[in-house]
């Protein structure tokens, strides 16, 4: 395993991301709620640049069987990454794919050390 300093903590605000290349691999560093996460820029669907896609929320729905009414809610604003090729959704905090159960973005350990953000590959 190799360690790489990829950014300084102050370089990224909450909601920011930074694309970097480490040993020929494209990695995206995300900052959300003060936490850093690193994912390989590779959609498990067809290998698209998932980490370059728009960051949005997504829709949830609940059905009231007594009233026969469906209530739509917008949730996870700022936490959903959409692969620009086909719209597959990923949850940024966990890397979980929302479009296919059990699938995840490949993730990498991240730690902060002396104001630097260090990614392990």
């Amino acid at each position, binding site marked *: 395993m190799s360690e790489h300093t990829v950014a300084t903590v102050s370089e990224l605000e909450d909601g920011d991301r930074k694309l970097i290349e480490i040993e020929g691999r494209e990695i995206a560093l995300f900052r959300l709620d003060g936490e850093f996460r690193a994912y390989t820029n590779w959609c498990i669907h067809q290998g698209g640049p998932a980490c370059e896609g728009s960051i949005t929320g997504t829709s949830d729905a609940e059905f009231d069987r007594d009233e026969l009414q469906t209530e739509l809610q917008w949730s996870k604003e700022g936490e959903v990454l959409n692969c620009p090729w086909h719209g597959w959704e990923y949850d940024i905090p966990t890397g979980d794919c929302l*479009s296919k159960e059990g699938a995840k973005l490949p993730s990498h350990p991240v730690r902060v050390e002396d104001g630097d953000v260090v990614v392990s590959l």
Partner: protein
Amino acid sequence: MMSQTAAHALAETTVVDTDVHITVEEEMIAKYLEEPHRSSITDSPHPMFPSSSWDQRMGGKIDDYFSEFTGPEDIRQFQEDFQIDYPIINTFEPLGKFSQPDLAMSLMRAYNDLLLDKFLDDYDFLGLGAVATQRPEEAAAEIDRIGDNEQIVGLYLGTSGEYPPLGDPSNDPIYKAAEDHDLPIVFHGNGEEFMFDFPLHNKGFNNYFEVQSLGHPWQQMATMASVIGEGVPAKFPDLDFVFLEAGIGWVPYLMHRMNKIYRMRRSEVPLLDQSPEEYIRDRFYIGSQPLGEPNRSEDMKRMIETLGADMLMFATDYPHWDFDHLEELDKYLQHYFTEEERQKILYETPVEAFRLPFQQ
């Protein structure tokens, strides 16, 4: 009717036929209607059951079996001839095509009264209750009326002439009532009624070959896409769905296609918490007829394997001109599948789908 060998093999197998139509003549249904609809059928010159004018039986090249298939004794004879132990009978008429909501509601109740009066009350037949969707709350009330009868084992909806498409939330009272009575929804495609859903193609096609090739699968695909896309299986988690009369090959195609589109557009259908394939494999059942006829028989083996014995059920569609004899499916089951798988498809899976009131 069949060879000695085939008859011997079938004699040892209990067979459920999930699609048997009784023919109901206009004078017969009129007896179960109140006025003004009774006279509207018997005394009025307008065609109550409009025809698309296609010649389905090609000038008599194919015999007419349906005109005389009107009574319980005809079903008994069919059972004997075709070695069907449990025919699940329906009144055929797709009620979605009727423009007059009053008439559609009256016909729905009349068909159910006829089914009970002529076929279920004095015999041990199993039947499907007719449902018309023009007024979903009234349809739900009808399901409440007939739904606790043990011989009513499902609810029959023709998928032609249905507007809006059947998954539309306006139909939710029907699905709720069906779930309350633990009755599966049975969607049935039709050829003659192609003109109601696809009038431009009906006008543009030059022969019935083209209509028959596309009518049933287009209707059934539109229905399955609508039901899944509107989240009906998620809204009613104990409700099951049966699709009849479009064969089986369209199911893997649409199932896999919907998986792909679901993953691209998940946020558009947020009620779904599983892939379309998971809903279909868990809760959808498919009737075999009319089984496609691949030039290479192993292609049908793979198709049957893709659906699986938990989803596939046998259907004849008798007495209609495009019926399948059991041999059509059973030749593949006997050649390529285990006896356990065969038993599932011919008996256990329909017993599960329709919650049939006897032991497996």
